[in-house]
């Protein structure tokens, strides 16, 4: 099967799943979570990948690298678009305090627990893997919040805080992930060259955003807007791909700058709305297909990962409440609402895999691929929704 036919195949698979979902409105909470976070697409990816049916061989996956790069670029760009600094004024300072504390607390606690587990089980894990693992564990999926909102289970200020905290957490994750990828990049090492690359890549994203702003300022036509956006993202991902730095990070910075320039963001959203969901599902399929070998002991490690993540999510949420003025106004299990794992974690792990493509990246892929559906089910079980 040629690389392009594989894309078509993936597109149609993604569509088949999506159409079924559209046709049969799923009511069961846990099933909705599984569908929305792309668990079934992940499974399809795993099935058609080199590990099982081999419809997508490793060679084809290599040829499709440019598409994965574009999808990741797109994902980073969308996350970046959320960070409109002017709109942050709308949120209470307590929201920021809660989100930051939650993020930091979780990262520290999770690092300690990972070191403890690795020490107890005497696992041969490179220290380089700790940092991406922590960031992957920290990222929360907004899907649980979305499903809770649409089901009407959580409303008002609490829903507002949850949405803010998850979005903020993901922004921090992507930013930290980007810096981390440059620091641990074998091309640059831990010396001054990393600093140059960080500054250089930030500068390039700034340049691209500024150029977009200047080129797009007189454009009214939606098609031309779409063309410019695709063109700029291609240039950005092309350069990033060649420099072996994080794809989601550079496009994230591009998105952040763009959304903060005096540009009509509604036009931006409108021109990309059509391609957002299919590209997400495509990315999830790629994650599944990128798992080339399955290591059985990883099941135990993943189980430990999920359990420790759940406990620490709860603990971090519980602790972060005390950062705000009236901790009792928030439920003690608020951290559990951050349990979901989805798009951001998948994009980060794929980005990591694309850059390093080694045993560590395979470990991370397996952990995330299992955690995404498992967390959704686990969340339903803990919160006793439709179980």
């Amino acid at each position, binding site marked *: 099967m*040629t690389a*392009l*036919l594989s*894309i*078509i195949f993936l*597109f*149609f698979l993604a*569509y088949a799943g*999506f*159409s079924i979902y*559209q*046709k049969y409105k799923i009511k069961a909470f846990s099933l909705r979570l599984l569908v929305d976070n792309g668990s079934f697409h992940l499974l399809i990816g795993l099935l058609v990948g080199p590990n099982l049916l081999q419809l997508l061989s490793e060679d084809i996956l290599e*040829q499709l*690298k*440019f598409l994965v*790069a*574009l999808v990741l670029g797109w994902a980073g760009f969308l996350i970046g678009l959320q960070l409109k600094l002017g709109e942050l004024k709308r949120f209470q300072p307590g929201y920021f305090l809660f989100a930051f504390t939650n993020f930091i607390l979780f990262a520290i606690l999770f690092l300690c627990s990972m070191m403890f587990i690795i020490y107890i089980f005497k696992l041969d894990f490179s220290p380089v893997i700790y940092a991406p693992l922590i960031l992957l564990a920290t990222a929360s999926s907004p899907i649980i919040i979305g499903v809770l909102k649409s089901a009407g289970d959580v409303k008002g200020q609490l829903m507002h805080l949850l949405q803010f905290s998850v979005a903020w957490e993901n922004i921090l994750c992507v930013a930290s992930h980007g810096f981390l990828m440059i620091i641990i990049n074998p*091309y640059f090492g831990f010396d001054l060259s990393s600093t140059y690359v960080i500054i250089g890549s930030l500068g390039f994203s700034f340049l691209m955003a500024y*150029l977009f702003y*200047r*080129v797009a300022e007189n454009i009214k036509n*939606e*098609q*031309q807007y*779409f*063309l*410019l956006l*695709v*063109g*700029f*993202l*291609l*240039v*950005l*991902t*092309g*350069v990033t*791909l*060649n*420099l*072996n730095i994080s794809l989601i990070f550079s496009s994230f910075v591009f998105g952040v700058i763009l959304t903060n320039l005096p540009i009509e963001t509604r036009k931006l959203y409108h*021109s990309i709305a*059509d*391609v957002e*969901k*299919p590209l997400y599902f495509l990315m999830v399929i790629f994650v599944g297909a990128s798992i080339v070998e399955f290591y059985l002991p990883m099941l135990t490690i993943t189980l430990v990962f999920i359990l420790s993540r759940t406990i620490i999510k709860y603990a971090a949420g519980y602790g972060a409440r005390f950062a705000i003025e009236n901790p009792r106004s928030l439920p003690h299990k608020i951290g559990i609402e951050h349990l979901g794992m989805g798009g951001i974690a998948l994009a980060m792990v794929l980005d990591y895999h694309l850059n390093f493509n080694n045993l560590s990246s395979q470990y991370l892929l397996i952990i995330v691929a299992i955690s995404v559906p498992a967390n959704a089910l686990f969340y339903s079980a803990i919160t006793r929704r439709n179980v």
Partner: protein
Amino acid sequence: MIKSILFIIIFLLIFWGMQNIPIPMSSQGVSTLLVGIILLTAFLFADLLRKFHLPRLTGYMIMGILLGAGGLGFLTSEQIEDFHFLENLALSFIALTAGGELKFKVLKEKFKSVSYILAGQVIFIFIGVFISFILAARYFSSFSQFDGNIIIAFGLLFAGTALSTSPATTIGIITETGAKGKTTNIVLFITVLKAIVLIVLFPILITYANTIVLNKSGLDVALLVKFLLQFGSSIVTGIIFGSLIIWYLKKVKVEISIFLFAVALAISEISPLFGLDILLTSIITGIVVQNFSSQGNSLISGIEIFSLPIYVLFFCLAGASLQLELLSEALALTIFLVTIRFIFNFLGNYFGAVMAQEDKVIRNFSWLGYIGQAGIALGLGIIIKQALSESYGNLFLTILISTVVINEMLGPILLKWTFFKAKETE
């Protein structure tokens, strides 16, 4: 204007800079970057040309020439070859649009004009170019040594390819100018129908020229059967894809643009595997959706969002592929062929329009809408080259490419002017 030039220079410098940094570049990274650079520079350049009232398509092609091997050398012939799948995808997308614009209801209203003008063009151009070439061939150095049969064979093939008009140019200019009206409909119908006529006519022509005139052997039935099978299976595949789109547009109705993009991709990839004609398959798909369902408008609007990047890539790559250096090799013959094609195009169109009692604009100006030549002509040229012996094949293709270069550069400008003259542009 200076701003656009400055931006183009910045993008070109980015690409040049990336090529020269001391880090090993991945081919995937280079291709991704290059596609982005093509999209942005061609778009900006075309925008620049609009100030001189030139069509965007011309801008895309000129940028392609600048980026190509004859210009800055950013787009090498290997890279153009790598991007061949993009050209096929674009062709499929454009033909899908062309088929989607072919409404039987409107065609029925304009049937008299379309059929007379089409017949006039086919007869006048084919016979006119054929006879003119036979009479003049001996005066050109490339053909002065050839005997009569070879000249007849070449005459037939040049006359056949002279019939082709680029649906991509027509659709591209219609999309760009937002042209609507009688002239637009007639030009579009004739262009699409001519493409179908050519797909049917050409196998017969090649077989006749190659086996009977050049090799003086019997009719190659196997070759004809092969072409007929290709024709039939392309139609059947087009009907299947058309039905699939109708089902999707009726039942699923979400993210239509991406689905149509996937269908175009499927057609462009599946067609070469099964020996189908991409153009015919896509046109039939579009025709089926437009005329056998109520989903025609959804098809056209679904295609719209992707159309601009597709046109930019297609025409920019077409520009980069133009072998300008070949022009000098057979300049006199090229000018002769282009001129007689112009003359008989006008005559065929004029007589057809007079017979159909059409108005002055159609009679005197609409022939300018059929000048553009691109993919079909080159595609036919390649088929001819493969069917003929190497020396004849190369000679034919060299001259054909030279004529296509001129026609393709003039085509969009003249077509835009035709729609402007007919007062059908937005």
